[in-house]
């Protein structure tokens, strides 16, 4: 069994390598204000993070990851461009699997740079691949930016697009919405009666609660409008479905995606960016011919990523969580930047899992 000091020694070594690549060491506090995290993740974060509190600062969370505090720090005081590295504990509540640790060490690398995003994506990925060299791992990559481009370019109302975008990270709810907007699924029973009613609010019940009559009326108006909106076309729907299922090695994936762009031309700029990334990866010596690309990758767990996403998985150990994950999160810097924004990409590695796999191999 590996012990804590071995894990810490490995983490320190990896951090030094990131420093050598030009990163500045940062050390965000263990306790993070709960409000920012709740704002960003909603109630879901309560299932994943430990919450504590005091009378002065209110609710605090034990750092569930580094990305958020590092982004906040950079947006408040960082110089441009910047590269950061860190290592330390993160804490995750575990309610289902007692074998998963609730505390472990992450080592990370984050790049805030306006120039050459494809180059920055490739830089992070290839540095991670270097840190993981020799381990029996499989890399998966994806690109949330292609999905968002596909949704935002649909020939339908802004309201529908916003609803789809909001649930991009919840594949089941996304599917339900898509089916409804494509006219494949009827609304709930009695919905037509409600929408056809002259005075839908004329029920014999009192208005209670903070959600006012005007808000209910506005939603009914929105539902009426939506009912009168033509369904998303079969062409677009088929394109979207094919897109979601693309799963190939990089060159074949790109080829398939270019075919899909015939029906969904809105993804072309995102595909150009993917192509530039592939070239940058290749220039850094990554074997892109054998690199996996899954269009849906990162949709379930990586909520703040909005472009390139990647993960490294242990072959033969499907029980283990990913050994490393990362991606691009330009929108997060916008959300936390009070008007400022900067393209950013980064990721984290798990030294404890790396040591475990090395032990397996011996």
């Amino acid at each position, binding site marked *: 069994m590996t012990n804590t000091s071995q894990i810490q020694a490995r983490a320190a070594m990896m951090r030094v390598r990131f420093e050598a690549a030009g990163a500045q060491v940062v050390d965000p506090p263990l306790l993070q204000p709960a409000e920012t995290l709740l704002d960003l993740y909603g109630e879901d974060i309560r*299932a994943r993070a430990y919450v504590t509190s005091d009378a002065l600062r209110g609710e605090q969370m034990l750092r569930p990851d580094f990305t958020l505090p590092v982004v906040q720090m950079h947006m408040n005081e960082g110089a441009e461009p910047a590269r950061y590295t860190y290592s330390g504990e993160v804490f995750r509540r575990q309610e289902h699997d007692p074998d998963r640790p609730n505390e472990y060490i992450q080592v990370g690398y984050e790049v805030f740079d306006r120039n050459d995003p494809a180059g920055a994506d490739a830089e992070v990925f290839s540095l991670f691949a270097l840190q993981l060299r020799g381990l029996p791992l499989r890399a998966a990559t994806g690109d949330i930016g292609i999905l968002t481009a596909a949704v935002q370019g649909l020939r339908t109302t802004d309201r529908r697009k916003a609803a789809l975008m909001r649930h991009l990270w919840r594949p089941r709810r996304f599917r339900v919405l898509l089916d409804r907007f494509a006219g494949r699924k009827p609304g709930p029973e009695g919905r037509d009666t409600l929408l056809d009613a002259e005075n839908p609010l004329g029920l014999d019940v009192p208005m209670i609660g903070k959600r006012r009559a005007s808000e209910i009326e506005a939603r009914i108006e929105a539902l009426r409008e939506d009912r009168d909106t033509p369904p998303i076309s079969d062409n677009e729907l088929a394109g979207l479905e094919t897109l979601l299922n693309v799963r190939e090695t990089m060159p074949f994936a790109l080829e398939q995606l270019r075919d899909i762009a015939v029906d969904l031309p809105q993804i072309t700029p995102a595909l150009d960016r993917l192509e530039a990334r592939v070239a940058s990866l290749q220039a850094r010596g990554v074997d892109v011919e054998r690199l996996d690309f899954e269009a849906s990758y990162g949709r379930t767990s990586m909520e703040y990523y909005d472009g390139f996403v990647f993960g490294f998985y242990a072959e033969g150990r499907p029980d283990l969580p990913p050994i490393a994950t990362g991606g691009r999160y330009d929108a997060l810097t916008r959300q936390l930047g009070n008007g400022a924004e900067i393209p950013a990409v980064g990721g984290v590695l798990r030294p404890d899992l790396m040591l475990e796999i090395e032990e397996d191999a011996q």
Partner: protein
Amino acid sequence: MSLKLGVPSKGRLMEKTFGWFEKRGITLSRSGSDREYAGKVEGIDGVSLILLSAGEIPRELAAGRIHMGVTGIDLVHEKLPRWEQQVEEVSRLGFGKADLIIATPACWVDVDTLDDLDAAAAAFRKTHGHRLRIATKYHRLVREFLTEAGVADYNLVDSQGATEGTVVNETAEAVADITSTGETLRANHLKILSDGLILQSQATLWRSRVAKYTEQDKAALSALLDRLA
């Protein structure tokens, strides 16, 4: 030592549990005064009665401090993560039936389903600057249910009693609570979402999988199970 049976210490739940065992030839009673939480078991050997609050019974079963216990399915599922590994369902007792449901104000004519709730929550957050609040004491069950359903932009707020009143008081916009007849919900102008049933609960006899059983306890357990069969 004896086989410890935990039973709710108060009210109808206690009386009905006593009645259920009585029908099977086992007489449970409170010893001494009404205020004393000690109990007596007649009609079977090697079993002792522990009177506890229904809410504490899941924890006592999981800690192995009692071997058997009567409490609601809702409380076991809420309080014990991976409950199947800690307790085993022996028998559903047929009373204390209640549904854990999600309810919204009846005046929300545009909200019938979780789908609607999600859409309303998104708009609510934009208008009011905070997430739509759902009052409950069943945090884990409700959160898992809503996550599974893909509902976003809500917040759970804790309510340990009079949950139905939170909407009128504007400390929450919706509730997730236990109901048997729906009477309290209606009286508070709330309605249940058509797909808002989280769990159907009733009083249930559980066996702890983690408690230590001596030879004597095992004999008492098997005698007890024979009587209940």
